[in-house]
């Protein structure tokens, strides 16, 4: 890891990743919407760690701009972490197509669009690492958030296929499946501390997975066992549950 591209850099997990990667002397490209909001982050990392930080304008919801965005990056990254996502409002999404579309666009379509471009470049260079932050919500559709869950399920399947394709080129693909994280996304939700990762802890686990070259990693690890159970509940029982 020398130059790391963080897509969706204004989220708290992304900022924690930026901090911890800067401490490991990685150069950073922070890509986000209205990236000038991150000017303070850029100066902070440069002053504390003496690294180069580039801010880049990136909008996950505009796939038509993704090719140009990537081509204009200089230097090119050797690691890309796809952090952006949109939880949305499920109750609204059930009745409002626009909300559903934004959830699907952000979590799936936008991710596929930018990672297609990056995957081709890494494959040509025969190096690199792609990290996708998916979600445990993608493991089984639940009535409370299946629009988000299905988009993340699509993203998880995409990452799995991409890993399979890029294996022979020496490009690693890591799927990260967070459970609850204590960020603005869950600001309104009361979650069990045992199941909830602080953004700094999540970032540390993601970086550890990158160093250990894992394929799939849960954040926190306890979610691996929870999801094992949830995946194995027979459908005739699952459909009656209030999840």
């Amino acid at each position, binding site marked *: 890891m020398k130059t790391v591209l963080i897509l969706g850099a204004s989220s708290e997990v992304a900022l924690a990743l930026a901090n911890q990667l800067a401490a490991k002397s990685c150069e950073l490209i922070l890509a986000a919407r209205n990236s000038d*909001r991150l000017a*303070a982050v850029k*100066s*902070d990392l440069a*002053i504390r760690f003496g690294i180069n930080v580039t801010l880049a304008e990136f909008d996950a919801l505009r796939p038509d701009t993704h090719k140009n965005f990537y081509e204009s990056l200089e230097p090119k990254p050797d690691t890309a972490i796809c952090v952006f996502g949109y939880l949305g409002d499920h109750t609204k999404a059930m009745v409002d197509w626009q909300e559903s579309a934004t959830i699907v666009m952000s979590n799936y379509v936008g991710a596929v669009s930018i990672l297609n471009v990056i995957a081709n470049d890494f494959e040509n260079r025969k190096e690199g690492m792609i990290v996708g932050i998916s979600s445990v919500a993608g493991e089984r559709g639940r009535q409370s958030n299946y629009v988000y869950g299905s988009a993340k399920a699509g993203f998880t399947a995409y990452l799995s296929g991409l890993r399979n394709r890029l294996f022979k080129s020496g490009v690693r693909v890591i799927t990260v499946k967070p459970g609850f994280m204590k960020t*603005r996304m869950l600001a309104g*939700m009361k979650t069990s501390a045992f199941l909830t990762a602080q953004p700094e802890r999540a970032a540390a686990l993601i970086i550890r997975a990158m160093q250990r070259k894992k394929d799939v990693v849960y954040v926190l690890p306890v979610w691996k066992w929870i999801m094992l159970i949830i995946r194995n509940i027979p459908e005739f029982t699952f459909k009656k549950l209030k999840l």
Partner: protein
Amino acid sequence: MASDFITNWNNYPLAKSNVSSPVLAEDFSAQLSIGSPFIVRGNGRCYGDASLAPSVTSTLKFNRIIYFDDRKGIITCESGLLLTDILDVIMPRGWFLPVTPGTRFITVGGAVASDVHGKNHHKDGSFSQHVLSLKILTPKGDVIYCNASENSEYFWFTCGGMGLTGIILEVTFSLKKIETGYIRQVQIKSGGLDEVLDLFEQYGHYTYSVAWIDCLKTGSDFGRSILMLGEHATVPELNGARHAFPKKSSTLSVPFYFPSFVLNGLSVKAFNSVFYGKNYKKEMHSMATCESFFYPLDAILHWNRIYGKRGFVQYQFVIPKERGKEGVRNILNRISSKGWGSFLAVLKLFGTQQGPISFNMEGYTLALDIPINDKLFSFLDELDLMVKDYGGRIYLTKDARMKPEIFHSTYPNASNFVSFLNKVDPEKKIVSLLSRRLEIK
């Protein structure tokens, strides 16, 4: 938003609060536009209710360094940055904080809102005197810059304004040049209170001075104390024996709240005897790291837990110099006679002060911790009246219980402060338990 019980360093009072933690400046604007009142909170190191409210906005995730000129010694940072994180960046490059309180675990925004003072107050004034510029999000939603010459009214009411004038977003301040991370320290043992009060003036040329008093001693030993003086050490003074900037030392932690019987007259006496006895000569010279000189208690994380779950009060007042000796003596006498147990009584002679609402004034300040008991608050009310009669006042940052009339009659600019706040925050969007208790807004 999840609601939790939070409390400040003295564990009193306890407040049920919704806490949000903005990450970017825009999140603060969003918080303001919600319209329900809140107070901004840093690292919760004040001793009272200044940063408590039913709704609290924490700055701890708003903590970046925006600018650092290591030739001129000027730094700009977001308000949630801790002093300890600033020190990690500036000390290796030969700079120190212009003013630091006794803990480095406070935010720079808190340092401004409390207009903190340090051991060099008689020489360098309080923190606000070194601030070059503040960037503030006003309660009306405007972003303004202010300092002693531009928007100066806003600036001076923000320094020591307990976070009530708006949200401090960024602080630019000047640093102090140092050659080494060491302090050339002199400790002078003093038999009694009158002696130590005189020593302050005698040793006024030292940059740093503070005295620790054993306030349980009565009779001829009453007010026995140790005056601690310091100067930043130069490279030649280290004699090449040490690396100019030492590594940080490790910390201990108090892992749980002590039961309240642990701290009694006897255990405090024992502690103070050991502490006093350690200074076996009348005058001792030594080389101390900045860390151990400025932040002796930071070496024991969660030391506040020794006072038990019920919490404690840190009573800090200042009395003008003319009547300071008499005032300190009489008040300390009253406290000693109660024998309620204080590890620390810290005495310091302040220099002159500029800020209209800041606590500091030229005179003697005494601070001591007292564990909370049923009779404490009525006793402190009596002490307040004594402080008031001597023309002194109580430090808001350390206050959890003062009556509003004491505040309004001892802070000479209290009514100007209140009308300024009415002007800049007519909808009362920024409100704390302290501002309600003291009838400020």
